[in-house]
């Protein structure tokens, strides 16, 4: 089995003055092409740090990240990130926000007209083409996150990194966007690595769930395969025994074996 994305013996130690904190300890994970993998853990366990390492925004202390057998250690559009708080640039319109990445990634390979069409194509993938001339302050939180997803998708990343993408949204909008994310994954077959702290979200969306122990020195505690056929339907799954079993396993891991300890 060929690993597409490989996290190889990653350690991360933060040093501040004389104090050193080991955040991540010996993280090993291989992800296949087209796989949807979630990383779940209590807050402060270093899962966002791990995602930042994969994105290249933070360096690993030891170990490294291999994408198609090549080490990646700086940020790039091949690992586009959807940030938790959307991170759209408020002075650009929806269209311009997506265009920013497209212009860089396809500067040589696509003509101006092609790039324009590509931006619009990606905006319509997330049903945001109608708001292309709006500024981020004029659209709702869910819409902003859609644009954030479009921006990442438009860079045609090899791996799409989602950093708690739906965490800041209300429950209804979140469900709606989760469905959209599933549909997009089904349609485009992206390789996705998602950080979440929502058990239902992890089970609903993922092929595998990586459960992390509490920090400091967080490790991968357990990896759970989610053997549910796609496409998955939220309502049908609610009573599906396989779904409930997976959910149970994650809950047990999080609340019995590795229940949250208040940070000292």
């Amino acid at each position, binding site marked *: 089995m060929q690993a597409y994305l490989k996290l190889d013996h990653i350690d991360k130690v933060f040093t501040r003055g004389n104090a050193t904190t080991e955040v991540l300890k010996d993280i090993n994970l291989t992800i296949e092409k087209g796989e949807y993998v979630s990383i779940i853990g209590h807050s402060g366990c270093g899962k966002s740090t791990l995602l930042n390492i994969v*994105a*290249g*925004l933070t360096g690993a202390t030891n170990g490294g990240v291999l994408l198609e057998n090549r080490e990646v250690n*700086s*940020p*790039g*559009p091949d*690992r*586009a*990130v959807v*940030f938790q*708080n959307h*991170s759209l*640039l*408020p*002075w650009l319109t929806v269209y311009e926000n997506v265009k*920013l*990445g497209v212009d*860089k*990634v396809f500067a040589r390979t696509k003509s101006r007209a092609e790039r324009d069409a590509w931006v619009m194509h990606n905006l319509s993938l997330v049903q945001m083409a109608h708001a292309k001339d709006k*500024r*981020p*302050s004029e659209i709702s939180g869910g819409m902003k996150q859609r644009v954030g997803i479009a921006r990442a998708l438009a*860079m045609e990343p090899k791996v799409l990194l989602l950093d708690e993408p739906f965490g800041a949204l209300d429950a209804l909008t979140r469900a709606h966007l989760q469905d959209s994310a599933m549909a997009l994954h089904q349609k485009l077959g992206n390789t996705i690595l998602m950080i979440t702290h929502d058990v239902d979200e992890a089970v609903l969306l993922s092929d595998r769930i990586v459960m992390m122990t509490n920090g400091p020195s967080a490790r991968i505690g357990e990896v759970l395969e989610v053997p549910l056929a796609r496409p998955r339907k939220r309502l049908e799954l609610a009573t599906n025994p396989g779904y409930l079993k997976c959910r149970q396993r994650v809950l047990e891991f999080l609340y019995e074996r590795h229940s949250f300890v208040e940070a000292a």
Partner: protein
Amino acid sequence: MSMPAMKAEMSAVVTPPAATAAPVVTMTPKRTPRAETYARMAKETAARVVPPLIVIALLLVVWELICRRAGSSLPPPSKVFKDTRELILDPFFDHGGIDKGLFWHLSASLQRVAYGFSLAAVAGIALGTLVGQSVWAMRGLDPLFQVLRTIPPLAWLPLSLAAFRDGQPSAIFVIFITSVWPIIINTAVGIRNIPQDYRNVAAVVQLNPLEFFTKIMIPAAAPYMFTGLRIGIGLSWLAIVAAEMLIGGVGIGFFIWDAWNSSHISEIILALFYVGIIGFVLDRLIAGLGKVVTRGTAAN
């Protein structure tokens, strides 16, 4: 007093549609609110304009009463107006030398401010960006800035006269050195406050440093930059009047000094009035420009 007039106006607007409204039903409800809007606008404007006018009128009366006595050292407003009538009515005369209308003096001063302030804006934003972006640049330069910015503008004038051996560049230098500090400091704060998110976005998209500067830094820090620019333009205007008193030539500062030397107190008062108005306009100009440029930036 104006109320009956306003009412008459309103009824005049409302009446015609009422007379012709029979076929078009929607006309009547459309027109009435518009007349109301005008009335409301007039009321709001009046509410803003009338109180300062009353205060000004009262101050003029008090000033008149105090200064009208014989032997008063300052002229009352009536005398100021009488003395400066010609200056007010003809600001464009030019009898050669420094005997020119106020327009020429003011425009000479404004020109110096424009040069000095433009230089300060460019240098201030560049240095502010450097200091905001690089920790080492900040450690090296910030203490220097903190000391230099406390030096009063006029204290630079002798040094710059020694360096440039001419009044004009010296005045421009004084403007520059006065207004550059708030621009540097505010820009640096703005750059330092760029959210990490924006930096992450730029990193993922792989913007090069120049693109990062134009597409992220400038727009993200623009509100801070304009705060700095606004303080800067105010300080330049403060400094130019003082500097011109010393360097002479054409300029509102020297005009005031010259009027004092010739005991034309009324002219000084008129000049002060203009200086105040122009300072106010300059401030509003930069504020307005900032509003246009930073639209959408502040809201998130």
